[in-house]
């Protein structure tokens, strides 16, 4: 029957590092993702039922107390797990990890059981409860490379698979291997602080390959054992001088003990 296609020697495996030191929480990635992937605006009524669709969100957490309070912004998208909990529960194989390590959602195959969404520990999957309408002004800015999801379909971050396939098609036309610098998801492209780094994990000299196993990187919910392909560069704070005047309990202001 069919001849298996001869694969090139190098198969990329796409991953992402999000640098929490650089992220300012400006939400440009969220907006860019929405524009790139034709994500529907579900409206306030749906939002009240937790029905907002946003493939990329920013989780804001507060740490510390009093004057020492600080905010941490964490962009969270689909974590593209190696052992994705969403995949084995799908009864129709509508989600699977492709050769290049991207966990993809096949919209035409999805029947909307929502098992995958329930099994995702990162809340990275979103269900289309209705056919959402676009305002006429929004209609003209829809991305022609991405289809519009219809009612009853689960959707999620695809690492901008349309950009990956477009780069691969271009490489195919130019008869050269695909370069990881050709590809940037919309979130990484829009990030003004360049906190999001996209690259090929199978390329040891690449953007990600050189630092992928660095000790400063963490994954979300490591105890779940999903092994995400998105890693976070942990926030590092410079050591501060003790607040001598305000608190009065530092070593400098401690009363001398006389013998």
């Amino acid at each position: 029957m069919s001849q298996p296609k001869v694969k090139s020697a190098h198969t990329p495996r796409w991953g992402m590092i999000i640098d929490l030191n650089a992220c300012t929480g400006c939400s440009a990635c969220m907006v860019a993702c929405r524009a790139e992937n034709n994500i529907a605006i579900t409206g306030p009524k749906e939002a009240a039922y937790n029905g907002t669709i946003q493939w990329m969100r920013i989780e804001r957490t507060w740490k510390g107390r009093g004057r020492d309070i600080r905010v941490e912004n964490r962009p969270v998208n689909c974590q593209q797990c190696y052992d994705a909990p969403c995949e084995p529960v799908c009864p129709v194989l509508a989600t699977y990890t492709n050769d290049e390590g991207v966990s993809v959602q096949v919209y035409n195959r999805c029947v909307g059981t929502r098992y995958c969404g329930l099994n995702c520990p990162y809340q990275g999957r979103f269900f289309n409860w209705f056919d959402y309408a676009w305002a006429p002004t929004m209609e003209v800015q829809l991305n022609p490379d991405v289809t519009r999801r219809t009612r009853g379909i689960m959707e999620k971050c695809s690492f901008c698979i349309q950009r990956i396939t477009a780069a691969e098609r271009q490489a195919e036309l130019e008869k050269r291997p695909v370069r990881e610098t050709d590809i940037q998801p919309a979130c990484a492209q829009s990030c003004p602080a360049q906190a999001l780094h996209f690259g090929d994990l199978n390329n040891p000299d690449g953007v990600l390959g050189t630092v992928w196993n660095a000790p400063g990187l963490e994954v979300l919910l490591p105890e779940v054992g999903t092994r995400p392909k998105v890693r976070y560069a942990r926030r590092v704070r410079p050591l501060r001088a003790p607040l001598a005047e305000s608190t009065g309990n530092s070593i400098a202001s401690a009363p001398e003990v006389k013998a």
Partner: protein
Amino acid sequence: MTRWKYLLTAVVLAGLGAAYPTLTQRAPRQPIAFPHKLHLAAGMHCTDCHRDAAVSASAGLPSVRECALCHARIKTQSPMIRQVMAYAKRGEEIPWQRVYRYPKSAHVIFRHNMHIAAGLACGTCHGDLRHATTASVWKPLDMGVCIACHRQHGAKVECQACHD
């Protein structure tokens, strides 16, 4: 007797199933019966009008102004050309009806440029328009047709290659 009835029902159902794409995909009526065969016989090429086929996802339809460019001089007395020129004079596009389309639920974006780059002739899917007036659904589009050809030519059969 009943066995014959079952058999007959099975045969009819199988026939309907096989004919399903043909029954559901029909060429709509065009506002003007555009004679492809005359244009091709005159030495024109598909991409003279469907200009973007080799470079972009959609093949593209020419504007009525492009029709008017040539037909300002050619065959001006023909009743159909007069219709075309009337559209052009009104500044109105001819409401051509789409022949080949995927259902919305298929979530497929067909890319003409990739198929042309792979060396496929237009006629592989659209039929030989040298003998046809308006375009018809020459090859009904279902996934079996696509996959069979992809397998035969060693093209990608992964879901995300076509379904975005």
